[in-house]
């Protein structure tokens, strides 16, 4: 744990529970989740499908509403944080509007948030450079590869400069080679922008490579089984994945996932 005395946590969940009422009875998507995310953390949520990792991320974004416990974002109610535009959200699919150019897509949140025209132009330029897409602003989404589209969607989430970046399996649909490159770029981005990142994944190497904090979750009911503070340095070349520490953490994550599955059988 970092020194929490000075700055208040970015995300704080206490006894958080979320139950969906379905026709087949209640589904406990989250149960008794306690977690604190500090400013500048890179937190990964990992677990099998149905473990509530996406639900938890959506609850932080106020796209879902918890039924028990408390959740604060930047010390506020998540809804208030959403209205204060506290975070940018990257979805599993790039979800660019096909009728807008790349620049037009990145401009979308800026238009809605009422930035001036000049400000829009300069911000679009800035984030395009940040995700290495200079010169692609005038292209339409279909003219870009899947990886480039996802980079554009990250740029869109960065455009209004929220402190928190929430990413829900952003590279889940991409092949491993593209994924490795984008992971590297996300790390660089994180180092440059000093944002707090919440990252949902089901890939152990991805979680270990990226995170300062790995939250291992298990299903039915969705809960946290382990929180691992990564001892890896902030500077991480790709070949750190062959180091002893890396393998040890990956092992612990795997153990945590297995334990979570164990008491289900």
């Amino acid at each position: 744990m970092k020194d929490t005395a000075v700055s208040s946590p970015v995300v704080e969940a206490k006894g958080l529970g979320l139950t969906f009422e379905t026709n087949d009875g209640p589904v406990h998507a989250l149960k008794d989740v306690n977690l604190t995310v500090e400013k500048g953390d890179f937190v990964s949520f990992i677990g099998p499908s149905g473990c509530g990792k996406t639900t938890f991320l959506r609850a932080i974004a106020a796209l879902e509403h918890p039924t028990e416990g408390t959740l604060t974002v930047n010390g506020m109610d998540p809804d208030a944080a959403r209205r204060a535009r506290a975070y940018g959200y990257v979805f599993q699919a790039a979800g660019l509007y096909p009728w807008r150019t790349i620049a037009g897509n990145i401009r979308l949140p800026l238009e809605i948030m009422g930035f001036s025209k000049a400000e829009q132009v300069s911000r679009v330029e800035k984030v395009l450079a940040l995700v290495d897409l200079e010169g692609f602003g005038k292209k339409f989404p279909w003219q870009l590869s899947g990886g480039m589209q996802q980079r554009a969607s990250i740029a869109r989430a960065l455009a209004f400069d929220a402190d928190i970046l929430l990413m829900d399996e952003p590279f889940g649909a991409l092949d491993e080679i593209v994924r490795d490159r984008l992971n590297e770029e996300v790390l660089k981005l994180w180092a440059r922008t000093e944002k707090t990142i919440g990252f949902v994944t089901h890939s152990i190497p991805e979680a270990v490579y990226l995170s300062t904090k790995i939250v291992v979750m298990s299903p039915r009911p969705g809960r946290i089984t382990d929180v691992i503070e990564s001892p890896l340095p902030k500077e991480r070349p790709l070949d750190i994945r062959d180091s002893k520490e890396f393998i040890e953490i990956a092992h612990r994550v795997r153990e945590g996932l297995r334990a979570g599955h164990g008491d289900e059988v």
Partner: protein
Amino acid sequence: MRSLFPVLAVLAAIVALWYGAAVRMNSQWTYDQAARAGVEVSLGAVVADTLSQERPVLPAPHQVAKGLWDGLFGQKVTSKRSLVYHGWVTLSATLLGFAIGTVMGIALAVGIVHNRAMDMSVMPWAIASQTIPILAIAPMIIVVMNSLGLQGLVPKAIISAYLSFFPVVVGMVKGLRSPDAMQLDLLKTYNAQPREVLTKLRLPASMPYLFASLKVGVAASLVGAIVGELPTGAVAGLGARLLSGSYYGQTVQIWAALFAAAIVAAGLVMIIGVIERAMLKRMGLVR
């Protein structure tokens, strides 16, 4: 060239069938005439006669073509016998009705998508409205509008709008609902207001659906305008031309008016197609 051949082949087959049917259907009259005059007619004479009767049961293609040509180019366009004149009368009602129907259809669709009460209440009525035969309701619209002091163009346009709003409503409801949950969530994360969701996401996403609906709607508009001309005993318009043709047994005139209507409909659909392509190209939706 390769695509032209099948089109021409089908066209030739239709024309051949048409000639055969014309000879067969019109021959009765020829035989009756001959019997009354007490003469025998050869087969060749029968065929020649059936293709050149004044009031045939089924006019031959060349007779219709001549009637159409005379109607379009054989008179001054202001003449009461000009198909251009009658076509314009019908077209103006069609365009006004189409505009009303489109605006109404889009407005209803926006309401249906945004308001649950409207969603549950309007759609059944819209569907019910289309199950009523337009021929039955058209005279009543004319009578009611007449009592309000409206004659001529507007009542016809209302009937035309009545037919054309429906495909627009159906298409636009589908189009406005086409954005998926993720795209809606995305706007929610920006704290976008419903108006912005409509203008930035739902309306652009519905454009392809809108144009498909407009093509159906504009053809329905033309039908509505023509039907609107029938029960009034209108003196102008393609509908009036059809009606007077049937009063006086002028089958060639009826068929010429029908083809004129078909040409107008095809032209309107083509114009919408051109606008569609230009619009979707600008939106980057055409690759």
